């Protein structure tokens, strides 16, 4: 049962990830990325990491991708007309690069296959909010504060960059 769900979610994730790359319309790309995120949240549930699965939906699908959609809609970008109709060297190079990386990762994985066949039985207790909160607020309290600072800095920085101040034309002495 779990294998079938995994295969379904994996195909969904990969297909929508491909669609992100090859769709001409930017809004479609963003929506397919949302689909990838939701499919990955499902995969996290299969890994019994419930907290991270929910957080993934809240942060990625609910916040970050909404921001992307906002920006795309407000900039009102045209769909790219020529995505693949010219055969250019660039695409081949990119494709070869990507496949090379994939082959390398899969090769290094293949040498140690069947290393960890089962999800650890402790996961039923570890994936819960209580367990994560316990570790997060005891062992990782300093990184947690640093991340809080980082987020504040990012929000302030974004406001500064995006703020469009037109210098008022000074009409002094002609």
């Amino acid at each position, binding site marked *: 049962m779990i294998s079938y769900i995994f295969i379904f979610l994996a195909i969904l994730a990969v297909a929508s990830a491909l669609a992100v790359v090859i769709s001409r*319309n930017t809004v479609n790309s963003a929506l397919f990325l949302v689909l990838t995120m939701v499919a990955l949240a499902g995969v996290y549930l299969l890994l019994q990491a*419930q907290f991270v699965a929910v957080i993934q939906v809240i942060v990625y699908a*609910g916040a970050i991708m*909404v921001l992307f959609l906002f920006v795309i809609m407000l900039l009102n970008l045209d769909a790219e007309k020529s995505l693949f109709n010219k055969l250019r060297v660039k695409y081949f190079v990119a494709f070869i690069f990507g496949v090379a990386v994939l082959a390398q990762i899969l090769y290094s994985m293949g040498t140690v296959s069947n290393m960890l066949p089962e999800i650890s039985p402790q996961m039923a207790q570890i994936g819960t909010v*209580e367990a994560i909160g316990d570790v997060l607020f005891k062992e990782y309290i300093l990184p947690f504060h640093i991340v809080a600072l980082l987020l504040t800095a990012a929000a302030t920085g974004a406001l500064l960059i995006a703020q469009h101040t037109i210098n008022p034309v000074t009409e002094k002495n002609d």
Partner: protein
Amino acid sequence: MEPVTSTSYIVLGVALFMLLNSAALAVYFERRIAAFIQNRVGPNRVGPLGLFQPLADVVKLLLKEDVTPTQGYRVIHTIAPVIPVFTALMTAAVIPFGEGLYVTDINTGVLYLLAITSLGVYGVTLAGWSSNSKYSLLGGLRAAAQMVSYELPLGMAIASCILFSQSLSVVDVANSQEFWWNIFRNPIGAVIFVVATFAEANRTPFDLVEAEQELVGGFHTEYSSMKFGMFFLAEYMHVMIGSMLITTFFFGSYHLPFAGYWLPEITGMWKVILDVSVFTAKTVFFAFVFIWVRWTIPRFKYNQVMKLGWKKMLPLSIANFMVLAVLIYAYYNFL
């Protein structure tokens, strides 16, 4: 996570059935109550007391012509109305309707509710964008900005409830209110939650999204026929879901006030009937409040909505959360 039992399926079926029907009934009662408040008669022709009016409305919507803007994006235009209905129905999965009467009890239930709410933004945004019309786009962006802003006070208000239940499971939140409802322990949180729920459901006084004077129909300007009907249905389902959430988080869920102190122990069928009727009565009352407010209070201006959300409710909710956290810590450690 608990195994799924046959009770889950029965509760799920009944809950979805009631939710869909209650949306239709809410449409009828909205019109009747509006008429009552404005000293009119309201719809009273179709069936006894006009009770079949929702059916007539549905038939009317189904028979209308379905128009898609030529310059719009057809696929997204079709998918968008389904999203709000879908997310509204998904919330029913974790709400407890009585002692042991819930579909599932996940230990991140509250976060699940927040996640589902945040997905509802896509419906209005995409509807506004795919119509390819200025009014729709502006309405959609307004709706999305408003929903995103009011999610934060909503989340903080819920977080201050979690302090009392000490668990993120919605069932535990409901059970923790057996003696004291959360409204008595956390009144500021309750006010914030109710206001934020109104804003999330895009209801008056926060229905800027469809302010006729400014935006024609807002994000559903270009929608007709059953696609419009889906938005209509979603709005009333959000009213019902909002009432259920207010009941669950602040008004004792299926418990009578201070039930733990005076209510004798009852078991079996009577317990189920009592729980469900108490829950239903509260939900109906809050649905009535939603309608009542709509016909009483005028609409805010958009800058006022945003100012209220970001400058008043968010700091207030955070301060409320921190004060409560300190008080509860002191209560458990020093008293």
